[in-house]
């Protein structure tokens, strides 16, 4: 039996490359064209059925005395599979890199936790900024992970609809892989895969610095 795509075994050994980086590209596609994209992905990716997922993601910020940008940690809980443990993920600052770098890069550390980490994060000094529900499909190809998802607002949060007009009719698409910083080929793999998805969707580097200022 093939493992489900997002199965992350609790690792018994600390992996040798603790300094893991995520190489990724993001884009969006109108709802009307999402099906075509899914068909194409099904053809391109590994021969397992696409994994539907519904994740409740919470974003926590920790104000940092030494830098302007807060430390960001995401807590993620699967609503589709309640038995999967919570995951907290530290995401570093996104580096767009120079023009010759194929993808955006950010460092990330994912920790699986037993129960709701809210109090733990609260004791660490984090404050809950926002939460979002992502529902969609999860594809994989080798070590690449592709998600096509729609965002919605959980009932416990308030939403500013004026800022979310355009995204209401689009799916978010992200292609990423995790590798050590010394791995040169990971970014190229992501980029080559994204070329195969054109012209249905064009995945590019997005300048996160501008987006961060639109809080």
């Amino acid at each position: 039996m093939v493992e489900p795509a997002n199965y992350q075994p609790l690792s018994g050994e600390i992996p040798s490359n603790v300094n893991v980086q995520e190489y990724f590209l993001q884009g969006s596609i109108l709802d009307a064209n999402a099906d075509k994209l899914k068909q194409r992905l099904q053809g391109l990716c590994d021969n397992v059925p696409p994994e539907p997922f519904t994740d409740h993601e919470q974003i926590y910020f920790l104000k940092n005395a030494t830098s302007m940008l807060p430390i960001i940690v995401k807590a993620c809980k699967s609503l589709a599979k309640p038995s999967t443990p919570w995951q907290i993920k530290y995401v570093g600052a996104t580096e767009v890199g120079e023009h010759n770098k194929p993808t955006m890069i950010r460092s990330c550390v994912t920790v699986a936790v037993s129960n709701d980490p809210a109090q733990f994060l609260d004791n660490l000094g984090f404050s809950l900024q926002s939460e979002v529900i992502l529902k969609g499909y999860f594809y994989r190809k080798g070590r690449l992970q592709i998600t096509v998802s729609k965002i919605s607002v959980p009932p416990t949060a308030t939403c500013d609809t004026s800022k979310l007009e355009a995204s209401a009719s689009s799916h978010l698409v992200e292609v990423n892989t995790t590798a050590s910083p010394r791995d040169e080929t990971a970014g190229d793999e992501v980029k080559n895969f994204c070329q195969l998805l054109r012209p249905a969707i064009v995945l590019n580097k997005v300048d996160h610095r501008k987006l961060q200022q639109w809080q």
Partner: protein
Amino acid sequence: MGVTYICQWKQPEGQNIQQSIEQISSCVEKLGAKKAGLFQVECESFNAPNAPNAKTLHLIYDSEFPASRFALFEEGSFLVTDVMLSAFLSKLRAVWQPKKGGKIDCKGQRYELGDFLIKLGVVSVGASAKGISVELEYAPCVYARDCWGMMSEMLQSIIGEQAPPSLPSNLQPKGTERFSPELTMQQYVEMFNNIRKTVVAR
């Protein structure tokens, strides 16, 4: 895992740690316990120097649970995570730093005696040994109140009059609830803190 009780064994006067460990080990072996490998419990403490109300955070690794790490805040919350926790905390090093002299560990021998698991360990800060710890686990039961009688008897035969006469207060809240690793870790942290205080007092 079953109900676990941990305490520090005050060694008799005039003996150093090595002799005390040998003494208590032979006592346990006389009871019929068989050696069953080694164990190790490590605890690293962190604090946030710039945050005024921040509690101390303890990160615990227990060889009995090799795929997990435990995060315990002093008078705060408790969390079980996988092995990436230390990497995660290192990313927060701008705010949370390891405490100086905060690393303390307990290493020793495991013994199995029927359903009981006895661990005798030497607690050390850095390279210097500071005390002896005794851990007793009764595997089949998960409710502390139900098995306290048996555990108390076993403790008496190992550590004599140092054994507590009745269910200790820190195990009591969980008397009717399932025992969890949280209590085990809390007991370890308490013991480590006590040992640290005695080290400082000297």
